[in-house]
């Protein structure tokens, strides 16, 4: 326990002893985490937009004349079980007649003497899906039923929106990974400065019988603190920016920026700690090799 306390206090003291290095490391993790946090908020809100758009996707399925109503009810239930389908709404011939009357103000029976409107069903697709939503398997599955006469959907629009969304997700992921990897290297090189400044201590520790993990621990603890401070500053910066900017964004786009500050702080802190841990352990391990 005393040993742990010693290592912890060494890590904390190192922060104070190497103010410039600490500042540089904290600043680099701050910059990285501001980028990562901003991407997170942007992707969270883009998700909301895509969910809204997916809510508007509608697949209309028209049944052939003469299919029994019980069978149609059965089919609609089956459609609901197709992967990627959120909900289904049955529109019977009678419902269609009512809709016609409410839309055009006239009774179709009076106009043509019988009800030519087919029974149909509206299929709503799932909103929450991390990657590109492909409606084709749903369409093909529905079309495979002999009772189905026609399937109508906004195919080109959906695939265009989904394709843009997929590119956006891929781009964001690439940028995020790149930023995190670069920051691990920056932090690693910054911590190396501390290590060189403390090579007398490392040498002394090795001579008096310190194990590798004992030598490494204070530097890793110091690195973890760099990440944690970087994350806290980055969270404050992003949350401050969002609080300040959300009014402006709303007035221009009518979109409310949504984010959970606690989740944001949690994600940034764990990311900051992780990249600093990786950076500092890489630096000290290379030095001790």
């Amino acid at each position, binding site marked *: 326990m*005393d*040993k742990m306390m010693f290592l912890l206090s060494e890590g904390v003291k190192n922060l104070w002893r190497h103010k410039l290095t600490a500042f540089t490391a904290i600043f680099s993790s701050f910059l990285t985490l501001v980028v990562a946090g901003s991407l997170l908020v942007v992707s969270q809100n883009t998700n909301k937009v895509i969910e809204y758009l997916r809510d508007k996707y509608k697949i209309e399925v028209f049944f052939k004349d003469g299919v029994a109503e019980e069978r149609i009810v059965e089919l609609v239930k089956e459609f609901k079980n197709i992967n990627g389908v959120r909900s289904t709404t049955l529109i019977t011939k009678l419902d269609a007649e009512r809709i016609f009357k409410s839309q055009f103000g006239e009774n179709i029976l009076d106009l043509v003497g019988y009800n030519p409107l087919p029974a149909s069903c509206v299929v709503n697709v799932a909103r929450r899906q991390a990657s590109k939503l492909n409606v084709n398997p749903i369409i093909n599955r529905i079309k495979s039923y002999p009772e189905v006469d026609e399937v109508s959907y906004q195919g080109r629009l959906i695939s265009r929106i989904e394709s843009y969304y997929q590119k956006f997700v891929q781009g964001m992921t690439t940028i995020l990974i790149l930023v995190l990897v670069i920051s691990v290297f920056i932090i690693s090189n910054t911590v190396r400065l501390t290590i060189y400044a403390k090579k007398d201590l490392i040498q*002394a520790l*090795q*001579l*008096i019988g310190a194990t*590798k993990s004992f030598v490494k621990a204070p530097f890793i603890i110091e690195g973890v603190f760099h990440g944690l401070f970087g994350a806290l500053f980055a969270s404050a910066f992003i949350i401050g920016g969002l609080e300040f900017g959300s009014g402006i964004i709303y007035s221009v786009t009518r979109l409310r920026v949504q984010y959970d500050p606690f989740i944001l702080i949690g994600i940034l802190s764990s990311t900051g700690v992780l990249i600093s841990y990786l950076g500092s352990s890489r630096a000290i391990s290379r030095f001790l090799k």
Partner: protein
Amino acid sequence: MNLSIGDNEYAFLIGPTGSGKTTLLRLIYMDLMPQVGNVVVDQYDSKKIKPRKIPYLRRKIGMVFQNYHLLNDRNLFENIALPLHVIGYTRDEIADRVIESLEEVGLEGKSEHYPEELSGGEQQRACVARALVKDPDIILADEPTGNLDPVTSFELIKLLEEINREGTAILMASHNYNLIKGRGHRIVEIQNGSLRQS
């Protein structure tokens, strides 16, 4: 070359600069590994030892260097306590042992001082205290008097003799024969890659 240092022995290792005194000491604390032959310290054999076990061997050896190797960013107490933190002593044990070691080398009352505030002789005694604090089986002193004036050098040798009388083996390397002759201890001379013992 064969050399054996017994328990409680005090031996001097002499030889001109570049003769290999430091190399021999580094072989003992396994900072260097022999290409042929082997070094045995207690149960640790250089032929069999795994790298991760070397720190445990070094905990049995106290080391004193010519240029002290004290850490300037911490005071004497913290410098001397460092080996005990490494071994895992409790805070109370560390305090007791450090005070005892400082008293033993005559530096009581200087625990709050930083190395730069001490004379060369005091710094070297602090190094001895740091070597002594973990109660080692042997102290290896590599030219510990190299930066000291003759009187302080003499005092340091006397201090090491006192420590030896209490049961710690000492192997001290020096190139100053005049300082060590006639003290009744074994003198091992290293020259041209071979040892001559008296």
